[in-house]
Structure formats: C-alpha cells, structure tokens
C-alpha cells in the first residue's frame, strides 16, 4: 500500500493545487480512487496523481543579508525623480 498525492485543477487555465492523498496498491487504483474522492461533483477538470515519494519538498530558504536588489521594494525612485524634473524644468507641469 502506498500514498499517492492528488493535485487538482479547478478549471481550464488554473494551476494544479495540492488537494490531498489516497492510499492505494498501485497507480491504477490511486487514479480510480482520486477520480471520485476529488472529482465526483465535477469540482475538478483534471487531476495529477503522484506517488508520495516522487514529491520532494524543498524548504531551506534564508535571506540573511537582505537581497533587495531583485525585488520591487528594493527601489526608491521618488527623490531622484524630483531632482531630475527640477533640472529639466518640468517640475511645474505636474
């Protein structure tokens, strides 16, 4: 008996999201079980059924030294823009 993780797509175009897991002896049974446990109300248009040990979690993320250079909140342009407009004489038009 193995655990199979089930990902479901709510409608076409949506991302597949983790929905739960089923216990089954093989992929064929897992798919048949998932079909009804996650689709009997047609709440999903598609499912991915994946053996649990094929799903690898990666969760070691550290931002110790503040890497703001590659995020939008790492840029403050308001003051530079004010100075540039003043130099160009376009400050009044605003």
């Amino acid at each position, binding site marked *: 008996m193995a655990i199979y993780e089930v990902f479901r797509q709510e409608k076409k175009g949506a991302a597949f999201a983790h929905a739960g897991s089923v216990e089954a002896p093989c992929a*064929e049974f897992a798919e048949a079980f998932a079909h*009804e446990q996650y689709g009997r109300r047609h709440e999903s248009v598609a499912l991915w059924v994946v053996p649990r040990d094929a799903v690898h979690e990666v969760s070691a993320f550290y931002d110790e030294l503040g890497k703001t250079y590659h995020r939008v909140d790492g840029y403050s342009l308001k003051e530079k823009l004010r100075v540039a407009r003043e130099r160009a004489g376009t400050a009044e038009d605003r």
Partner: protein
Amino acid sequence: MSRVNVQALLRIADDELILGWRDSEWTGIAPSLEEDVAFSSIAQNEIGHARALYELCARELGTTADELAFDRSPDEYECAPLVELRRLDWAHTIARHWLYEEADELRLAALKESDNAEVAGLAAKMDREELYHRLHARMWAERLRGDERFESAVTELYPYALGVLDGDLRAAYSSRVGLSGSEPQTHERGSHSPELASLWEEMTSVRRSVPGATW
C-alpha cells in the same frame, strides 16, 4: 422516429435500480475507505440511469418515475435474476459488477443505435458514465483473477449474467468474458426469487407507511 419500446427500457431500468440498490448496501462498509467512495458513485450512477429510463417510460405510460420505481408489486418488475441476488461479500460483488458491466456495454451499444433519437441520446449519456464503471470493474477483476473466491463467484454468477442480455448478444458476451465453451443453464428473466420480495419490502417500507404522500 419510432416509438419507445417501454418494456425493453423497463428491463434495463429495473436492472439498474435493483443493482444500484444492492451496490448502495456497500456505502459505509466497503473494504477500504477509498474504495467505499468510488463504489458508492457507481451505485448512484446506476440509480440515476434507472431514474432517467423511468422518466422516459413514465411519459409513455402516463405515470411518474417514482411510481414506476416503487409502486409496482415485486412480480411486475422486469429485472434479471442476476441483480436480485443478495451477495454482501466482496468476491461476489465484484464478480457481479464485472459480469454486469461487460454485458451492459453490449446492451448499451445496441441501444445507442435505436431509431428513437431520445433513447439513443440517453444511451450515449449513460455509456459515457459507464466508462468509469468498466474501468473500475476491470481493474478489480484483473487483481482478483486466479483468486478462488472470485473465480468461484464468477462461475456461480455467469449463468445469471447471461440472462441480462437478449439471446442475440449472448455469443459475443461469452467470448468477451472468456467463458464461451461452457453452456450453463441460463437464469432467464421472467421469474423472481424470494430475495427480490425481501428487497422490495425494505425498499418500499417508508413509502408504503403513508400511501400517496409526498416525501
């Protein structure tokens, strides 16, 4: 467009109703929780097919689907003996499920060719829902192949399964289930076992408690 053959449709409807009733007995007690959910969907589909067929017949007969499903006496049902048998064990349940689905596929294929567009359309819809039933039945039958409990259940139920189909479909059916060559005494439609009477008692007990009421 040709007229609806009510008796032929009632045979299928009654098969689906009684088999669906039997299959719904497993809701809550199937061998695994995952299987319980899957098999319950199959039971619901069967009742749903019965309902759709009854609705078609009801219009022809000037009655309602519920009256056809519940208000006839046991002798008036047209179901095949296969579906009446009470076999609340998994080997027999899967044996019956597999034998029935293989027969039903042939029967539905013929019904899809009906001259009556409404009947053909309904048969096509039922057939699409049955894809899951067949997948499920074959999956289990393959896993249980060679197991003594399953094989002896198939042997016991095969003569009943033949009775689900009209004569002209039986040769194709025998070879499809790998049992051509054996020529058992077929249990034909037309007579009912005491098991149907017990089932009917329970199935109609609430309905009969206040005759004519709306539930």
